[in-house]
Structures are given as C-alpha cells and as structure tokens.
C-alpha cells in the first residue's frame, strides 16, 4: 500500500492547462479566489500549442465590413445550424476583446500595414478574420497565457510573500475522479504521474478544460493527452454530453510517411492560396460545392483565382469550404481511385507563392514537411488526407456560466464543452472559444463558490477513489492496455469514422462493450514510478466511454450533417436539426436521449436571409420566425 494521499484545499480546481483552463484560472485569481491548475503534462505543453492557423475574431482590421453578426452567421452556417445559438452569439460578440486582452499580456500577433493585428482568410469565414502569428498561433496563445499565470504568481510573491499562495500548477498529475458530497462537487482525486502518489483536492467548484478525444482514433492530429478525460469525468460525475456523434475530420493531415500519418497540415495553406488536386491533375473541389453554399463559392478556376486579389467581386475558392465538406470530398476522390500513391490527394501552394513568402507565412509547415517527409513545399505538392482533429460534442453547459447541466459546482470550457460549434467547427473558432468560454467558466465558478462555500470531502469518498487507482496493480487478468488501445482505435477508425452506416455502428457498439469488459482485466507491469503502462489504464477507460457515447449517438442520428456522415442516410434533414443527442452514464453503460434544440430567438433569426434559413429549417419553424 502506498503512503497517504497529499491533501490540498482550493476555492477552484481547474483540470487542464490549455487555453481554456488557464483563462479560467486567470479569471478566478483576479476575482480573489485560490486556484489549483492540474495538468497531465508539463506546464505549457497543452494541445493548444498545436493550433496553427489563428484565432477568429471580427475585429475588422483587414475588412471593416466585418462585425459580430457576420461572424455569428458564419459560425451557425459552419455548424449547419445545430449550434447552441447563445454560445455562438457570446463567442462572436466577445472574441475581439479576448484577443486584444492577450496583447495587453504581451502577445505579439502579426500586423497590418497600419500596425493593427493582421487577420487572415480561413474556411467558412466571410472576411479575413483570423488573428495569427505565422502558422504558430496556438504556441503564442499558450505561451501568453502561461506567462500571464506567471505574472500573477510573481505579483502574489511580491504582495503576499508566496508565488504559489493563490495559484499553484500541479503538472503531470492525472485526475481520476470528480469527488462529490451531498450531490454537489466537493473536489477531485488523482495521482502524480512521476511516482503514483495520490492527491486529494478539496474544492467546491471544478472547471473541466481537458480538450478533446482524438486518441480514441487511429489517425489523428491530437497529442497523447486527447483521451477524452474531461468528457468521461463529467459523465461519471452525472453530467451529460451533447451531440457526441459530431467529430471533425480535418481535411488535410499528412499521409506519408506512416509515422507522421495524421499530423496536421494547417488550413492556412489553403487560406494562402493552396489548391487541391487529384492524381489526374484535376482541381476537384469545384465538383463538391453543396447547394447551400452555391452562391458563396466560385464554380470555376478563373473566378476562384481572382478572389485572392478582389474579394468583393468574386466568390471564394471551394478549397475554403467548411472542413466537413472538404474532408468528404477528399475521401470520395481517394475512394474513386483518384488518390495519390499513399492514399491522399495533392495540396500545392508552390505555384501561387514564392519560396520566400511560403517560408515566411507557413514556416512550421515548411519545416514539418522538409524534416519529416523530405518534401520541399516551396517546390512540390504535399500529400494530404483527412485526420481526426476535433470533437464538436462535449459536456452540456449553460452558455453564460459554462456550468455543467445536472451537477452543481461543475463547469466545462473549451473543446470538452459541447454546443458552440454545432455539427462542424470553423477553423479559427477554437482558439477564441477557449478564451471566451474559459473566462466565462472562471466567472461562473467564482460566482458559484461565493454563494455556496466549501463542501468537505468525506473519508469514505476518498477510500473509494483510492481503490480505483490501486486496482490495475492488483489485477492478474493479463490484458495489455497498449493492445486494447490499438484495438479500440481499429474499431473507431473502421466503424465510427468519417463515413458511417447503421450496421457498422451497431457492430462498433458491441465491440466497444467487449473491449470494456476486457479492460477490467488489465494487468500492469512495473511499479508506480513514472509508468506509462499504468497511466494508459485510466486514459483507456475514458476513451472507451467516449467511443461508446460517439457510436451510440451516431447510430441514433439518421441523417448526414457536418461531422457526421451516414452512408445509409446521406441527406441533411430539417427535422433532425431540431434534435440534440444527450449522452448520460448509468454506471454500466451510456444511454442516449433526444432533446429539443433551443429555438433561435427572433433577433438572431432576423440576422439571416429567410431563404437561407429555408435550407436548414422546417416550414413550420420559418413560419414562426424564431422565438420571442
């Protein structure tokens, strides 16, 4: 048996040190509360660092016609109107302030000629909208937030005599359970990855900001941390997940060599003029413009090319359609035998930009291809194909406070929260989502703690949580966690991937249940000292729960929309648009129920041309004209 758990008391525990978690922590500290920031990796390594293209905010620095209403419309269109309207509205309204705020904390974005923050084009955004730093915007964001935390700690050091008095970062700690007492959040339980030492955090409010679920899939742009921890922790604590069937397959991941398969190729390559071609040399995206977007995208090369020079009088190139459309198009081309040698398509920016400009605007892409694939993108085309990138589904929250529905004291922000992006996220909306809702989760938690106070954790609760951590060392079942993880990835890749059928999804549900049964028999070799095999046991448990939720939600939705494509139900169906899928966990399995989508209020309904809404809504909804 190990020594007794370390014990800490805080006002708020934030799980996850990416953009959303750190923004929540800043908000909580500035309101005078104490915060523990807990993360699985070292501080500053969160997946936010991987975001390349930029952060969408309608500052109007490049095109002054941009404003929050245009951004809101683009976000809703991108999500095929399944978004929670209130989240999309708050996001569009608050994003510019969150970007400017970063600048006051030392961020250095690329500039326009007038010296303002430069903004670039991206898929689905009507105007140049993404604040960026070359193609390493996520790094700038995480570093700025990390340095903001350090700045606050330094201030506490000067004023309170201890840099860690109000904010302490617990790096390389895994949280295994949200603790509850009397039906409300009381803290969190976990262990130090370095040595297996267990930790109890007592706190009346917990903010989950754990990011995504990509590692559930075989081909993904996500780092190892994307194992759906927050999704699973929330489910187990009694919260709901909303619309877990919607996963974004980013259209352009690397496909070769094998070892880098899935690594992201930023959408900025297309934003900067990169074109997609098949093995016949055909610029195929013109064939894949869906009806709902026909008036916004060019249907011929000449117009598409002119758009780069004159955006007011030409329609956009179809390479810049929302990600779900481009990913499906690439998938179809490859399936039809028009793919590259390694099962992708070609993405070429070398014909439009000079080598010097490419290296300046896309430095990490140049570096990545040159070092990992031996390809010089200033001279030749890249080979790309879809990769699991982002989960639109997530914890069901109240939009204004980020409070998880159904569990007092629990909050969620960033990728782990659902609703904001509907069935498909636009590129660039993630980084500002982190900041807007990270801040709101911090505010929500502060308000909750101020009105509720402490909720002590009982010994019985701690004992139960500790037993779960000891279990894998006790088991003699002989299953290997690495093997089960690989098998799970095969199941999700083959049966719950980019194109789905009812039959395959049913098969996946059975297989995931079998894997879950086997996972109870995992045995771990070695001891508690930095033992990746041991760590994987908890990650795997989370991934199995997330995969079950995704497969069941996907089986229930009998239509194709955004990041959910059913071969057996190929069209988008307005009746299905009125439904969210809610996942809950009964202790043994995930259950799905349909829930009506909140109705667009009249003032937001009126922002759209009614003929556009007719493409998405039923005649009855149109006749009502939004709620009052």
């Amino acid at each position, binding site marked *: 048996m190990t020594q007794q758990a370390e014990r800490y008391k805080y006002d708020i525990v934030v799980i996850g040190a990416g953009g959303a978690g750190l923004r929540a922590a800043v908000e909580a500290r500035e309101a005078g509360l104490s915060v523990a920031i807990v993360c699985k*990796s*070292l*501080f500053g*390594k969160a*997946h936010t*660092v*991987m975001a390349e293209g930029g952060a969408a905010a309608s500052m109007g620095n490049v095109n002054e016609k941009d404003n929050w209403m245009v951004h809101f419309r683009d976000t809703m269109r991108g999500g095929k109107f399944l978004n929670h309207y209130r989240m999309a509205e708050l996001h569009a309204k608050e994003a*510019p*302030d969150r970007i*400017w*705020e970063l*600048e*006051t*904390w*030392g961020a*250095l*974005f*690329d*500039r326009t000629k007038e*010296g*303002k923050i*430069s903004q670039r084009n991206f898929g689905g955004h009507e105007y140049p909208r993404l604040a960026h*730093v*070359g193609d*390493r915007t996520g*790094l*700038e964001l995480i*570093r700025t937030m990390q*340095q*903001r935390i*350090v*700045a606050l*700690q*330094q201030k506490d*050091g000067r004023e309170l005599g201890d*840099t860690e008095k109000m904010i302490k970062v617990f790096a390389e700690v895994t949280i295994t359970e949200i603790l509850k007492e009397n039906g409300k959040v009381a803290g969190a339980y976990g262990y130090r990855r*370095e040595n297996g030492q267990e930790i109890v955090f007592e706190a009346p409010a917990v903010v989950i900001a754990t990011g995504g679920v990509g590692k559930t899939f075989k081909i993904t742009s996500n*780092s*190892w941390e994307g194992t759906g921890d927050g999704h699973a922790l929330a489910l187990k604590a009694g919260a709901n997940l909303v619309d877990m069937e919607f996963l974004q397959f980013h259209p352009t991941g690397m496909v070769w*060599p*094998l*070892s*880098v398969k899935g*690594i*992201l190729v930023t959408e900025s390559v297309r934003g900067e003029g990169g074109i997609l071609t098949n093995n016949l040399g055909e610029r195929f995206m013109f064939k894949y413009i869906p009806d709902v977007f026909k008036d916004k995208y060019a249907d011929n090369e000449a117009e598409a090319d002119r758009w780069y020079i004159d955006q007011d009088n030409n329609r956009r190139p179809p390479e810049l359609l929302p990600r779900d459309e481009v990913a499906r198009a690439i998938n179809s081309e490859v399936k039809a035998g028009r793919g590259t040698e390694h099962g992708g398509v070609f993405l070429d920016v070398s014909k439009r930009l000079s080598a010097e400009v490419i290296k300046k605007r896309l430095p990490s892409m140049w*570096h990545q291809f040159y*070092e*990992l*694939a031996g390809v010089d993108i200033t001279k030749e085309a890249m080979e790309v194909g879809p990769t699991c990138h982002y989960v639109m589904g997530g914890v069901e929250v109240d939009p204004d406070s980020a409070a998880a529905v159904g569990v007092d004291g629990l909050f969620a922000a960033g990728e782990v929260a659902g609703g904001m992006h509907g069935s498909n996220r636009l590129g660039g909306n993630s980084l500002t989502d982190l900041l807007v809702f990270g801040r709101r989760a911090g505010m929500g938690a502060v308000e909750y703690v101020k009105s509720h106070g402490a909720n002590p954790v009982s010994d019985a609760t701690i004992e139960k949580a500790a037993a779960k951590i000891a279990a894998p060392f006790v088991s003699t079942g002989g299953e290997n966690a*690495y093997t089960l993880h*690989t098998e799970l990835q095969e199941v999700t890749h083959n049966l719950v991937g980019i194109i789905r059928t009812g039959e395959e999804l049913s098969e996946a549900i059975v297989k995931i249940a079998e894997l879950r049964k086997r996972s109870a028999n995992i045995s*771990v*070799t*070695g001891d508690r*000292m*930095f*033992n*990746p*095999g*041991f760590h994987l046991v908890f990650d795997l448990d989370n991934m199995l729960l997330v995969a079950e939720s995704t497969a069941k939600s996907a089986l229930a939705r009998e239509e194709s929309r955004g990041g959910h494509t059913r071969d057996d139900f190929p069209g988008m169906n307005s009746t299905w648009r009125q439904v969210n899928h809610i996942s809950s966990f009964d202790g043994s399995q995930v259950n799905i129920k349909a829930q009506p989508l909140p109705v667009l209020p009249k003032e937001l309904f009126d922002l759209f041309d009614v003929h556009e809404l007719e493409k998405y809504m039923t005649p009855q909804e149109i006749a009502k004209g939004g709620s009052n």
Partner: protein
Amino acid sequence: MARTLKLRIWRGNDKDGGLQDVTVEANNGEVVLDIIHRVQATQMGDLAVRWNCKAGKCGSCSMEINGKPRLACMTQVSAYGEDEVITITPLRAFPVIKDLVTDVSFNYKKAMEVRAYEHPTDLAPGEARMQQVDVERSQEFRKCIECFLCQDTCHVIRDHEENKKSFAGPRFFIRLAELDMHPLDTLRNRKQSAQEEHGLGMCNITKCCTEVCPEHIRITDNAIIPMKERVVDVKYDPLRWLGSVIRKREGIL
C-alpha cells in the same frame, strides 16, 4: 520496408541505472520516438518517456540520442547507418526521475525569476499599433517551444551544478531579449537584469545552444550578443542608457 534496429536505452532512476540493449523493428520513415513507443508497447511496458504532440511543436520529447540533445519526434531513424547502434539517454543537465524522464523544474524556477511583461498603463486593449518589422525581432524568440535542449547543452550548467543558482540559461536569455525588444514592454532594465540577476556574463558565446535549437532560433547572434553589447554600452555610458529608455518608449528601439 522494415529493418531491425539495435538500441541502447538508459533505464534507471535517481539512484541507479544503466544502458540496456534492445532489438526492435523499424519501418521506413519512422522517427526515434516511434521506436521508443514500439519498445514500450511490446517489450518494456513501464519505459518512462515524455512526449506530447509528436510533431515538433510542444518540446516534450527532449533526450540525448547518440550523445546529442534532440527531439525524439524529429529525429529520423534513417539518419543513422544500417549497423549503427542508437544510444538513447536522458538529458544530462537535469536530475533523472526515471529512464528518459528528467526533473526539469529548474527551468520553471528560472521562468518565475524573469519579471513578466508590463503593458503601458495608458494603452487600452485594442489600441496598440506596431509595425511588423518591429514585432519580428521578439517573434523570433517567441517561437521557442521550451524543449530545454539549449539548457541541456549549455556547458555553463551541463556539468556545473554549482552554476545553476546564478545562471538562467539560453532559454531565459531569449526571453529577456524578447521582452527587451518588445515594442511595448515598459520595464526598462531588461539588459541590466540579464547581466546582474540572470548570469548573462557567464555565457562565453560558444553557440552550442543555437546549434541544438529545433526551432533554429539564433539564440547567440540575435539575443545574447546584442544584449551583451548593449549591456557594455549602457553600463559605462549613462547618456546612452537614458537614450535607450526614451527610444524604447517611442517604439524606436
């Protein structure tokens, strides 16, 4: 096309350890981190290694490969000869926790010692105007992914534990240079504090840090040398010091 690879991996903890021979399959195009993962999944379930993005962007998988500080995710197996044995060891400048994982908390302590950016109090959010050419100098240093390879290779601390107390290391010299060259930072004594509080003077410009930087930041030429030169100017000429402060306020420097 698969090949069989011979590795020697350092295994152990803070008290004891040594190199272990491992034979493992490698596929075309794989990087050293792929190989470590294969060893982990098939032969050594508890082999400790840090990694995150596997794309050269997070700076987690720093280790020494055949004695050179490198990111395992950016090191192609094909860079080594058919019969060459690849030796993988933890970063030498930091205490070992287990196997390839070291205690890098030194770097976080040093980060805490560098006084944070201070925004002009009279400049409201959204009002900043800076030219691209002026932000680019600091942007080069903000490319840093904090892999700490420069810290590991720096001979001032690599084999001199006693210097760690007074020496921040190359990573934090570029942080200081970044703030020094930041068009808006209002804290005026960055160069002096680099010299007086962070041990800039102990660096004797051997450029080892620049050589190992996976982001190709010109640490020595663009950060350390300019700061050293200006420290000398400022230190011996009060008028130049005053001038530099004014120029900085005006966004000229």
